[in-house]
């Protein structure tokens, strides 16, 4: 069998703080193909953010390995750009400068100054932030900040785009508009995307596959749901589609069972 584009192989993560040892992940296996949109869903505290940080290289694995495009991941890098939950824009830079900082760093030897300028503008355009490009993060809304965060990540031309609950802090309307934006960009650029979420509808609407994590400690993959919805998907049309409802039901069933089990255990 040919190796998958992104391969998470038997990954375990254990944190040690003094004498306290907590095993967050154990034996996580996941293969993601090029161009695929995969969501990871699970109850809070199940270690899904830990898994994303491992893929990003921000956390080391205790066991196993993560392999991207035939190379083992050992440290963070722009080929695995992250959109952080709280946008993480640098408040002293404008939207343009935040994206430009990444562009300048990643394409230092490959693009001229003018090309880097154009590339920065292009990515701001992708997320429709051109009109507010000279505003500071404090001057724009939460949704706009997250758009800039997405532009910054896209501008690094990552092999896999990592989204860490990117819309969790936004109101429902803003979230919907950003989800549509992400779908559009995914359709245009065919990025490989790994997204953490706790929103079932978001997962079903955006993903090709939904990875369901078991409850921690020592969480692992509890099941994978294929979302057999044709693309392009439109929010209004798909929410009554049998494939949508089926996938949604299976995810909710899984989460509910986990929740009930956790309650019995507690």
């Amino acid at each position, binding site marked *: 069998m040919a190796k998958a584009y992104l391969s998470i192989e038997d990954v375990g993560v254990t944190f040690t703080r003094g004498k306290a040892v907590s095993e967050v992940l154990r034996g996580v296996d996941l293969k993601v193909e090029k161009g695929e949109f995969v969501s990871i869903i699970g109850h809070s505290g199940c270690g899904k953010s830990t898994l994303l940080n491992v893929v*990003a*290289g*921000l956390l080391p694995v205790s066991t196993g390995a993560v392999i991207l495009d035939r190379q083992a991941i050992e*440290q*963070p*890098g*722009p080929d*695995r*750009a*992250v959109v*952080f*939950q*709280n*946008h*993480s824009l*640098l*408040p*002293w830079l404008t939207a343009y400068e935040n994206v430009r*900082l*990444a562009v300048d*760093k*990643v394409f230092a030897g490959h693009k001229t100054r003018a090309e880097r300028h154009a590339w920065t503008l292009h990515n701001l355009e992708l997320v*429709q932030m051109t*009109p*507010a490009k000279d*505003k*500071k993060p*404090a001057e724009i*809304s*939460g*949704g*706009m*900040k997250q*758009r800039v965060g997405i532009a910054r990540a896209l501008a*690094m031309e990552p092999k896999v785009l990592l989204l860490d609950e990117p819309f*969790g*802090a*936004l*109101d429902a*309307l*803003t979230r919907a*508009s950003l989800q549509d934006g992400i779908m559009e960009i995914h359709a245009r650029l065919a990025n490989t995307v790994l997204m953490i979420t706790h929103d079932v509808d978001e997962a079903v609407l955006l993903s090709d596959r939904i990875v369901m994590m078991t409850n921690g400690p020592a969480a692992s993959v509890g099941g994978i749901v294929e979302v057999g919805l044709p693309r392009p998907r439109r929010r209004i049309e798909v929410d009554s589609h049998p494939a949508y409802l089926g996938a949604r039901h299976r995810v909710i069933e899984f989460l509910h069972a986990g929740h009930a089990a956790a309650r019995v255990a507690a």
Partner: protein
Amino acid sequence: MLMSAITEGEPAPAPASPPPAPEPRRMAAPAPSRLAERLRQGVALVFPPVLMLGLCLAVWQVVANNNPGGLPAPLTIWSDSRELILHPFFDRGGVDKGLFWHAMTSLSRVGVGFSLAAVAGVALGVLVGSSRFAHRGLDPIFQVLRTVPPLAWLPISLAMFKQAQPSALFVIFITAIWPIMINTAVGVRNIPQDYVNVSRVMRLSPLEYFFKILLPAATPYIFTGLRIGVGMSWLAIVASEMLLGGVGVGFFIWDQYNASRISDIVVALVWVGLVGFALDRMVALLGHIVSRGTASN
């Protein structure tokens, strides 16, 4: 998480600029009424402090009139020290100068001592803030040294330098460096993990991290330290000049005390207060500019 809580209530992407003000209304409102509005706002800002100042002076005048031989009353000070108040720029050689020149001498000492303290304080603060070993090793020492009162350093510094000028500079330096250093260290330690993660994902080199993330992120803290530092320098210079003699506001005050010219001392105190206030505002303004609006005023 704090960020997300704050952004939650914000509206969806809004038009970048507010809608233009309706033209017809602006036409209808003639210029004089806008001027009157500006004037009204100005008066509302200036009136309370002027009123309170007048009240204080009036109380002072009454109390001083009823206690002759104590603190001179405001009107007495005006008649005694009118020349000093109205002519701050005279220079008759030696130490017989206007208050402006005394203040400039003190300020230049603060300028040199404080600049040295700023450079050393920020450098040490970055070290203590970014290295756990340096923090554990140096922080206890600094916490003890910073509580030593500025004037307590004066005898030691005189013994070291044997001259008034470098001793005064050393006292300024040693007074200002602690708040600058400690605040810088706090700023560096408080850099959000998110910024560190962003820099790691971008693979910034240590040098790039220092200039693009660490310094700007710590700038508001650094300027808090600089403001406290410049205020303390000004406290220390006036006190140490009293002991060192020569030129300077502190020396002037002590000199006038020896000459029993209490009115002149009051005038000098007003100068000290105003210059200290100006110093504080200048550093705050500089911080506002350098941090591009992220440092508080």
